[in-house]
């Protein structure tokens, strides 16, 4: 069961933005720009690996039973990627939801 029906890339981005906003809401970050598709999790929001897990877990909670395979998002050619934008996360979420 998902909290949003018929997720496309636009709604997935909206969801990722909302979840990320919630997560960082009490991090005391100095963040002049509002969150947007180009916001980078590591460079802009100071995400660590466990923060990524918490983001992914929250998104999984929103869509119970969907296999998001976030490991495919954080690894490229056997190497961990250095950073991810919110648009990349949203694209992955939308793709997996379309397959589900």
């Amino acid at each position: 069961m998902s909290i949003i029906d018929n997720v496309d890339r636009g709604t997935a981005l909206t969801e990722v933005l909302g979840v990320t906003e919630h997560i960082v809401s009490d991090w005391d970050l100095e963040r002049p720009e509002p969150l947007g598709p180009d916001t980078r999790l590591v460079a802009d929001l100071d995400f660590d690996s466990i923060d990524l897990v918490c983001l992914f877990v929250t998104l999984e909670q929103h869509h119970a039973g969907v296999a998001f395979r976030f490991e495919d998002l954080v690894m490229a050619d056997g190497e961990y990627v250095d950073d991810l934008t919110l648009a990349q996360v949203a694209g992955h979420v939308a793709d997996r939801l379309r397959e589900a």
Partner: protein
Amino acid sequence: MPRALLLGIDGATFDVLDPLMRDGTMPFLAGLVDRGVRAPLMSTALPLTAQAWPSLMTGRSPGHHGLIDFARFQPAPAGGGSFRFTTSRDLMCETIWTRASRQGRTATALNFFGLYPPLPIDGHSIGAFIPWRHLKDAIHPPELYARLQQLPGFARRELAMDHELEKKCLAGLAEGETRGWIELHTRREAQWLAILRHLLTTEPSDVVAVVFDGTDKLQHACWRHIDPACLPAQPTETDREIRALCLDYFRRLDAILAEVAALAGPDTRVFVASDHGFGPTREVFYVNAWLAGQGLLAWRDGVAEDRGDRLSEDRMRSLVELIDWERTRAFAVTPSSNGIHLAPGCEHLAPAIEQALLRFRDPASGAPVVTAVRRREDTYPGPYGDRAPHLVLTLRDHGFVSVLPAPTPLVARATVAGTHRPEGVFVAAGPGIASGITVPALSILDVAPLLLHCLGLPVDDDLEGRLPAEIFAPGVLEREPVRTRAAAPARHVVPAGAGSEALPGQELVEERLRALGYFE
């Protein structure tokens, strides 16, 4: 008031507690033992918080409940793989908190590993090993977080876990950092007391359980100041100061236990349990360096060898980048799993690696270093045993392996540190509990049926432990016979009314969608 109170003391061992009870540092615990029952409590196959507390609260072994380690390694088809911190989404068995909730009992479970994200229960829970930045989403029900923030002394950065500090602790604290480390955990236990005071006086659950984990953290870093057998013959001023701070921690912990038991009231059965024991470790076994020496693992060109008895890189994922996966057939990924993974297609190497490990000798003494090598199917029977490494090692001092490159596989530590041992502690006291006796070792799996019984509930037949009848006073179990029942085929059943609150971030997501016209 609660029918049962479980005071978890992470890593507690009678080797440390007995002297402290004798010398008056822990008078409450001494009194509890005097008027109750004590026993060794045997941990899970690997005495590790990440699998032992989940076993205690599910009554199932790790191969069944699925939490084997703090991180889960997911192999990639082309070699190597990725790490992911384990969460309650990996927990495949129901907790006793949920079982109790489903049968009309309320439960409070604080600081247990495996409770993030929170599972729906009728009561309260706070997950353990959660960084402060995610504490708000580790608390059930969500509105409890706002109430906790109003408590005197509430400091989210200290109540939650600072992973950077944790890594420093396991790697060895630098001179001058130890005092702050001990004081941090003393303050942290005081925060748990404040939370328990609040919950026990406003909404006492039928079963209240809490884990105090400063013991584990102090014992890792300060074992040589805590274990009477390791105290230096000629202590320096710093040695004396650190020992005094450690004793102060245990003194304050004892006072906290006393207050929590008093708040629960005289009609409550009180249980003390640890997830594993503790003991000294004097060396580091670099298992990947050993595998490299056997031609089973290749490092990438130019990797730096460890020279400081560290167990892992600061960033777990860094290991993936140290290994040449195309030329590697066997590897260890985390110290805490104490195990070796075999690359796809290399499973046949298990017997040879096992024999070679058992033949490995300390070059100085000629003594064996690896005392047991077990297959994961034997160590973790159950549907989720394949989440573990193929081979699980036991070292002669029960230490954790290092996964780093090193010039030689075995290195003496600069100073004695603390490490986990299988034998933890169990104490029970209160109405109906026998008085002043010691019983043979119990299993950590026995605690779940015991708590369910004390809640007046039947013991589900899928629980792997037994109800330890020997801890009850004569005649008690005739008056309150143990009931059993077939387990409900459920993983995490939502009790009516519980878990119906919004998911983390749901409000903000809906607000954004509303702005876009998706919601009316």
